[in-house]
C-alpha cells in the first residue's frame, strides 16, 4: 500500500471532516437536540429548572449505564441489572420499614445486595463458564423472585427521613442525586482509563484468548466487573427509592433497555470500536433530554419511545458501517 501524494486537498479535507463528524456525532446530536428544543420551547425547555430536572431524573440511568458499560468493555452482557436494582431496593427499604434501621445502614444493605448479586453473576460467568447472556438472565429472574418474596409484591413506605433527603437535598443549586451519579460515572471513568484493571478489562473485551495468553487474570477481572455492575444497580436502587419515598415492586425493570441504548449510543464516541463511560453518560443525557423535550411539545408518550428507538438504530447503524470500513481492509 502506498500513501497517495496527489490526492487533492479538498478530498483529504472532506474525508477528515467526515472522520471528525462520525467521531463526534453523539455530541453533535446532543447539541442539535438541545438547540432544537430550546428554539421550539424556549419558555419551558431552556430553563435552569428544566436542566436540573433532567439531570436529577437521569441520575438512576447514568449509574446503571456506567455499570453496564464496564460489562460491555469486557465483552460480556449483564441482563440482570434491572432485577438486581429491584432486589437491592427491596432489601434496603425493608430493613428501614420493618426493622427500623437507619438510612446509612439501608444504603449499605442495598449496595451489598447488589454486590452479592454481581458476584454470583461473575462466578457463574468466569468460573462456571456459563455464557453471560443466559447466566445473567437466569440470575435476574432469581433476583426478581427474591425481591418479591421479601416484599410480598406490596408497595410500602416508612422510609427514614434522612433516606428521603438523598433525593431532596441540593448542594448549591444542584440536586444531590445528580452529584452522586456524576461521581459514580467519574469513578468508573477513571477506573477504566487509568488503572491496570481498566487496561486488562479492555484487552479481554478486545481479544479474550490473547488476553489469557498474555497473562491477564481474566477470571478475576470478569468477577470484579460483574461486582461493579451489581454495585451500580444497588446505587441506582437507592436513587430510585429515595426519590419515590417508597418501595414498589419491579422498580428496576424499566431501566435495562435504556441503559444498553445509552451505552451503544456512546460507542460512537470511541470511534465505533470501544465502549466508554463518557459516551454512555452523554447517551443517557441525550435520551433524557429527548424524552423531556417531546413531552413539553405535547407529543404522546409513544413518540418518545419511537424517537429513542430510531436514534439508537441510526447510531448503531453508523457505528456498524464505520466498523466495516475499518475491518474491510
Amino acid at each position, binding site marked *: 500500500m502506498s500513501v497517495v501524494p496527489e490526492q487533492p486537498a479538498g478530498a483529504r479535507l472532506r474525508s477528515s471532516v467526515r472522520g471528525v463528524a462520525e467521531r463526534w456525532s453523539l455530541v453533535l446530536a446532543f447539541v442539535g437536540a438541545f438547540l432544537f428544543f430550546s428554539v421550539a420551547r424556549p419558555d419551558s425547555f431552556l430553563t435552569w429548572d428544566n436542566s436540573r430536572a433532567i439531570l436529577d431524573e437521569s441520575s438512576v440511568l447514568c449509574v446503571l449505564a456506567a455499570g453496564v458499560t464496564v460489562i460491555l468493555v469486557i465483552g460480556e452482557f449483564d441482563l440482570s441489572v434491572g432485577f438486581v436494582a429491584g432486589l437491592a431496593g427491596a432489601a434496603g427499604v425493608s430493613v428501614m420499614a420493618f426493622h427500623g434501621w437507619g438510612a446509612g445502614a439501608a444504603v449499605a444493605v442495598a449496595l451489598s445486595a447488589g454486590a452479592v448479586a454481581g458476584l454470583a453473576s461473575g462466578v457463574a460467568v468466569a468460573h462456571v463458564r456459563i455464557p453471560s447472556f443466559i447466566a445473567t438472565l437466569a440470575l435476574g429472574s432469581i433476583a426478581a423472585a427474591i425481591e418479591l418474596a421479601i416484599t410480598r409484591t406490596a408497595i410500602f413506605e416508612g422510609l427514614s427521613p434522612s433516606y428521603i433527603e438523598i433525593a431532596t437535598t441540593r448542594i448549591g443549586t444542584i440536586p444531590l442525586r445528580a452529584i452522586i451519579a456524576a461521581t459514580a460515572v467519574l469513578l468508573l471513568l477513571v477506573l477504566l482509563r487509568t488503572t491496570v484493571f481498566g487496561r486488562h478489562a*479492555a484487552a479481554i473485551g478486545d481479544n479474550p*484468548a490473547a488476553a489469557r495468553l498474555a*497473562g491477564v487474570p481474566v477470571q478475576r477481572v470478569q468477577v470484579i466487573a460483574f461486582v461493579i455492575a451489581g454495585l451500580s444497580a444497588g446505587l441506582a436502587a437507592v436513587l430510585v427509592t429515595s426519590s419515590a419515598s417508597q418501595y414498589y415492586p419491579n422498580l428496576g425493570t424499566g431501566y435495562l433497555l435504556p441503559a444498553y441504548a445509552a451505552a451503544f449510543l456512546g460507542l460512537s464516541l470511541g470511534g465505533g470500536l470501544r465502549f466508554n463511560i463518557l459516551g454512555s453518560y452523554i447517551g443517557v443525557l441525550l435520551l433524557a433530554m429527548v424524552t423531556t423535550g417531546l413531552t413539553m411539545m405535547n407529543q404522546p408518550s409513544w413518540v418518545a419511545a419511537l424517537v429513542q428507538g430510531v436514534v439508537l438504530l441510526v447510531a448503531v447503524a453508523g457505528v456498524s458501517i464505520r466498523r466495516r470500513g475499518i475491518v474491510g481492509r
Partner: protein
Amino acid sequence: MAADAAWLEVRGLTKRYGGVLALDGAALGLRGGRIHGLVGANGAGKSTLVKCLTGMVRPTGGSIVVDGRALRPGRPVESLRSGIASVPQELTVAPMLTVADNVMLGHEPRVPPGVVRRGELRRRAASALAAVSLEAPLEAPVGRLPLIEQRLLMVARALARDARLVIFDEPTATLAPHEAKQLLELIRSLAARGVSVLYVSHHLREIEEVCDSVTVLRDGQVVADLERPTHAALVELLAPGAAPGHAAAHEERTRGVVVLDVRSLTGERLRDVSLTVAAGEVVGLAGLAGSGARELLLTVCGAAPFGSGSIALGGRRLPSGDPQRAVAAGVGFLPGDRALGTFPSHVVRHNVALPSLSRFSRLGFVEPAREKSAVAALLDRVALRTSSEAPIASLSGGNQQKALVARWIGSDARLLLLDDPTAGVDVATRPEIHSQIRALTAAGLAVLLVSTDAEELAELSDRVVVFERGAVVGELASQQLTSGRVLAAMTGGRPETAAPGGAAFPAGSGTGGTTDMSGSGS
C-alpha cells in the same frame, strides 16, 4: 475452453482506502488449465486483488472481465456464478455441520420452496470429494477432521460449484511438508482438468515449483509478469538487494544454566516428553501437525493442561493450564496465529505493555509517562519504527510480530516460545525477525521454536528435537542441522540420534530439498 486465450482479465483495477491506494491499476489475465502465481510483500495489494475478484471488496476503478463481459463489482454471488471460488487462508468451514453439508454449503440442491434434496446433495458432495481424493465420511462433523482434510474439503466445495477459477491464499501456511506436497499435487491435478488457479503465497519455492506464470505486485502496482518464474528472480524482484544469504555460523559456546526443564510430561497429546532448554539456547521442535511439537509449546505456556510429569522454569514448577502463572514466571508466547496475540482495536503501546503493566503502575494506576518511555525503548530495541500510538491493526504482519517480541522483552521473559514466527511475514522482514531472535538468545534468553519450515528450524536452532505421535523420537545436534535432515526427520525419516553437543558448524551450508525460500543463497 480455449487454453491459450485469457478467459478472465483484470483491467486497471484500483482500490483506494481513504488516502491509501491498496491497488493501483493492477492487470492480469488468467487462462484455463494454468496455475498463475501472485506474489508481493505484505501490503502490496495481493489480498485486495483477491477480494475484488471474489466480490468481497468493491474496487474504486477498473474492471474484471469474464468471457468478454464485465463483472458487476462488489457482488460475491455474481463472482461465484461466474465460476470464481476461493480457498482462503483461514478456513471457513462450519465445524458442527457434516462433511456433505459443508461441501454443498450455499449451493444445496433443492425443490422449489427451498426443501433440500438430501440424496442429490450427498451424491454431488461425494463426487466433489472424490475429485480431491478425500475419503471422509459424508456424515462426520467437519470439526473432527484434520486440518489438511478441512482444506481439501474447501477445494471440494469450489469444485462442487463448477468453479473455473480457484484462488488459493497461502494454502500451505499451517501444513506439514508432506501435507503441503499433497495439496500441491491436488492443485496440479485441478489445472490438468482445465481449471485456472490463482496461487497467492509468500513461499517462493512453491511458486517456482507449481506456477506456470506469476504476477509480482509492489505498492499496489504490477511490477513484473513472469513466465516460468524462478526463486532467484522472484527474490530479486521482491527484496531488491536484500536476497537472504546464509545464516551466520552457530557460535560455539558453553551452554548456560538450564531455564526450562520438562520431565516426563504427559497430556492429551503428549507422551512422556522430557527436554531442557538452557539460557542462550534455541531448541527447535520438529514434527508434523499433531506430532506434539506445537502441543508442547501450548502446554508450557499454560494454554493447554497436562496430566502427569512436570514443567519447571528456573527451578520453580509451573501449574497445569495457567497462563497467568506461566507469564509471571517468565514465559513469553508468540502464537503463529496473530489473532491469538494482538488486541486489534488497541494501539501499539497497549499491546506491548499489557503483561508488564505492574512495572509502570503504582497502587493499580498506570503511570503514562513511565509506560510511554519504556514502550518507546522496547520498540527501538526491536527496530520497529512506528508511533506507539498507532493502532496495531495498521501495522503489517511482520511489524505486528515485532511488537509482540517487544512485549515479551518488556515483561522480562526468560523463555520465549515461538510458534511459526515468520508465517505470513514478507521476505524483507523475515531476516530481521531472525536476527532479533539471535540477539535475544545472545543476551541469555532461552527459546523453544516450532516451525513448519524446515529451513527456519535448521537456521535458528542450536539443536532440534524431533516429535512423532506425541513423543520425542530423536534429536539433531548442531553439526547435523541442515534443512534437508530436519525435513527428513519431520516427515518420518528416523534421524540418527546423536549426543547433543555444541560443536561449531556453519548452519545451512549445502542444504538441499528445501521447502521454503529463505536461507538458500540465490
